[in-house]
């Protein structure tokens, strides 16, 4: 049980976050399409990941992965080709999943750092510059998770799978062009409900 996680495991007959991590042991991966081949040798740095501070977005990418490494959301704020994306996804998983609760929520990653937080079976990871504000992004993750929780009424991993196209909308309301766009939960939810009513 994670402190600060609103409404985890309460109510609803749907799968909770945890039940999906059990399901993740099955041989195929419903979303993301890859498991394994972790911890391999560090591949060469993609040129795009080396660029300097001022002309790059603060956030390089946002990833939501489960413990088995299945990607539940990948939002890229820089141009990567598909192979690079795949490598990054695998590396992030390898780096993040070995850490325990006594570790910090920050981990050096290539020339960057990953700010991450685990909610039940899901890792929410944000890749930023080494001199970016760790705690601000750590709480940006939590703010995002609280919005998801409100929007999906006790969110679980399956909500993200079946409503993947809505999750992108939530992300875009809160983060845009690699920057924090809106932080007010009330404002974001109001906008999301308005959009929902258009369906």
């Amino acid at each position, binding site marked *: 049980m994670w402190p600060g996680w609103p409404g985890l495991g309460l109510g609803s007959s749907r799968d909770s976050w945890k039940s999906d991590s059990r399901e993740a042991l099955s041989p195929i991966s419903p979303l993301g399409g890859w498991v394994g081949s972790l911890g391999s040798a560090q591949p060469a740095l993609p040129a795009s990941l080396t660029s300097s501070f*001022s002309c790059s977005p603060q956030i390089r990418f946002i990833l939501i992965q489960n413990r088995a490494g299945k990607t539940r959301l990948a939002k890229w704020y820089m141009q990567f080709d598909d192979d690079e994306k795949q490598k990054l996804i695998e590396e992030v998983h390898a780096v993040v999943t070995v850490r325990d609760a006594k570790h910090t929520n920050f981990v050096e990653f290539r020339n960057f750092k990953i700010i991450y937080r685990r909610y039940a079976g899901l890792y929410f990871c944000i890749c930023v510059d080494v001199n970016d504000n760790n705690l601000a992004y750590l*709480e940006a993750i939590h703010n995002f998770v609280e919005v998801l929780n409100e929007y999906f009424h006790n969110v679980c991993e399956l909500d993200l799978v079946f409503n993947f196209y809505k999750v992108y909308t939530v992300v875009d309301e809160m983060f845009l062009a690699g920057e924090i766009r809106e932080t007010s939960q*009330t404002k974001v939810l109001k906008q999301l409900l308005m959009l929902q009513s258009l369906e």
Partner: protein
Amino acid sequence: MRGLAVFISDIRNCKSKEAEIKRINKELANIRSKFKGDKALDGYSKKKYVCKLLFIFLLGHDIDFGHMEAVNLLSSNRYTEKQIGYLFISVLVNSNSELIRLINNAIKNDLASRNPTFMGLALHCIASVGSREMAEAFAGEIPKVLVAGDTMDSVKQSAALCLLRLYRTSPDLVPMGDWTSRVVHLLNDQHLGVVTAATSLITTLAQKNPEEFKTSVSLAVSRLSRIVTSASTDLQDYTYYFVPAPWLSVKLLRLLQCYPPPDPAVRGRLTECLETILNKAQEPPKSKKVQHSNAKNAVLFEAISLIIHHDSEPNLLVRACNQLGQFLQHRETNLRYLALESMCTLASSEFSHEAVKTHIETVINALKTERDVSVRQRAVDLLYAMCDRSNAPQIVAEMLSYLETADYSIREEIVLKVAILAEKYAVDYTWYVDTILNLIRIAGDYVSEEVWYRVIQIVINRDDVQGYAAKTVFEALQAPACHENLVKVGGYILGEFGNLIAGDPRSSPLIQFNLLHSKFHLCSVPTRALLLSTYIKFVNLFPEVKPTIQDVLRSDSQLRNADVELQQRAVEYLRLSTVASTDILATVLEEMPPFPERESSILAKLKKKKGPSTVTDLEDTKRERSVDVNGGPEPAPASTSAMSTPSPSADLLGLGRPTARPHPPPGGGLLVDVFSDSASVVAPLAPGSEDNFARFVCKNNGVLFENQLLQIGLKSEFRQNLGRMFIFYGNKTSTQFLNFTPTLICSDDLQPNLNLQTKPVDPTVEGGAQVQQVVNIECVSDFTEAPVLNIQFRYGGTFQNVSVQLPITLNKFFQPTEMASQDFFQRWKQLSNPQQEVQNIFKAKHPMDTEVTKAKIIGFGSALLEEVDPNPANFVGAGIIHTKTTQIGCLLRLEPNLQAQMYRLTLRTSKEAVSQRLCELLSAQF
């Protein structure tokens, strides 16, 4: 979308990868038939199928259709259909120009629609894709949307960040203008969401155009002031766990870090803000939730960054330091980590250096007890940063003891740091020597060459420590198992200064020698080579052990060692010890002269390892502030760790080069004299040989070399990968050439790629006569260098030695290829990999004559293709390089610029080295 949910469930229920692929293929076939069907699909179905395709793509499968349907969705009037269309486009960006035009058109319509929802979708799409085409289409429009009075707040937020994205990808397309001043005023906007988005945009623009955005400083300060002084409920929606607008505060504090401290009026206000933030950190928390403290501390850490950035308010710096000091013992690992990291930068400020130092015990404790290696790493960094003369012995000792258990991943870095600190803050160099020997003992494997080179440099440069060093290494070598690096240091130091301890019967010359030699057989070749040099130095230092050493050198294991370096040293040293007089020995084997003072190679290595910023900044900032931050006496002269010198070369006087002898004798020529058996040496290339060589690149016949005695002419022919060259040697004198020996020399790089066969010529060339030599040539693989023709002969009583480059160049194996314009450009495009293209822009060295140029290109070997290049002034060529192993297609294009008297030459071939070489060769022709 029920169909989508069913499909996703199906996929999740698949029991194997094969089943999943089967299900996906079935779905793809279904979607394809729907898209191709006669019946026009309604918007809902189209949306559903496009969404399914997107899902399949996100599973990791390729999608090669559906783009058009997605683009169609963009012009729907229903939000949900439009949204799926835009999402598909954002995720599967396609540089298909046809589609980009359609997409841009749809975006344009939505931007003009005045419907905030549609405008938002369009802006988010631009912000996600951010391509140059989009920047071209919309960079002019978006600033207008951003500053227009009637734009909705949420659209403004999106427009600000959308513009930021375009500015990052194509700054040239986003010109500053009237809008810039109005953007700055968005900092005053009522809607904090707009301010949040605008602050990011302004920060980035201000970094590039500080002058234009200077007014943002005072606006940011007053906005920040209003936030930090507000009651915790004032900002309503923007209060997060009782912290008012934490993310906006962080962004504003970052914006202020683009500028120096503001002028006094604004500065006072800013200082008040920063003090308020520091005060709030001391207040009891308003909530026990971690979110509350995280948000509060996010602002606090950013404020401390700004305080450090300004580095002008001693009071604030010390307060910041005290605040961080409290965090050092906080129960949250995150805070301990961040406090260590932040304190590192505080340590470099003269105002807070002393305050940081007071936390030394806590930091040392962190080194011992932290569970997360990254936290321990930060502790090491901080100890390094806070180290000065007063605490160096303690810090170095703690680091050494930590090293025994340190994680392997950070050992090398700790070794470097210990070595640097020990040198920099050594009050007496015996401590330094002890420290380095300890380093080698504890973590020998992690002691890089730079570290042990450096200890030798210092010992050699400081005579007060030499005796101590000799004694200490001698004692350290007594250990039954010692690290090879210790043997190296020991061998070197005893070879130089063993005499200083030889008076003690416990370390007599023979004992020293036996001690070193007992390690010899366990060492690697480079160490053994070094020890052999030590032995010959001993011969000079201690004549009494000369016979013992000669016996060792003479043994088969040395004289016939399989390793040439060892064998050569054994042979040469043995010979030297036998033939040279005591005087010569003493000169040759003199003590090493002091090394020139220069930047510590260790520091250079640490910089390389950590990236320049972390280390240099620290050093430079300390130095710039002429105040002696670290206190204590002036650094000793040999502590040069931070002095920069013209060439911070990483090795120690060439010690790093594998074959260089570690003891280059100061009286350079002597060794050569001793061993000189007048071996024939190849002469350096004859002067002018380069020019002559270049002349043969585009022709096959002519005179290659001529002086008063000798003329060398060439005639050659090439076909595919084979060639034959006739070399004519003409004796211009009336006297015989004797022992006339031409030799063809191919370097090691060239040898495997080029086969040359020839027969020796008659060793006597009569006066006025000409002899001919035939060389058969085979090109095995592409090559860069040219073979060298060396000719040696006796003329009268003198020995003549001439070397010239033989013009056998890669382009000789060209076969011209004619092709039509279309073919040419098709192939040109195929060779579009950046490595395949080599381009050179150069000034014309000869008059720019079209006919001459054409002749040269044909002479170069490629076909000259007419009417291929749309510009008739350009020259285009094509051909195939034949080698035994492969054939390499080559395309070339030469663009003359008559006004500038310049050429641009572009070569594209399937092999990088070939493109490179051909470009070099041909560039030299014009």
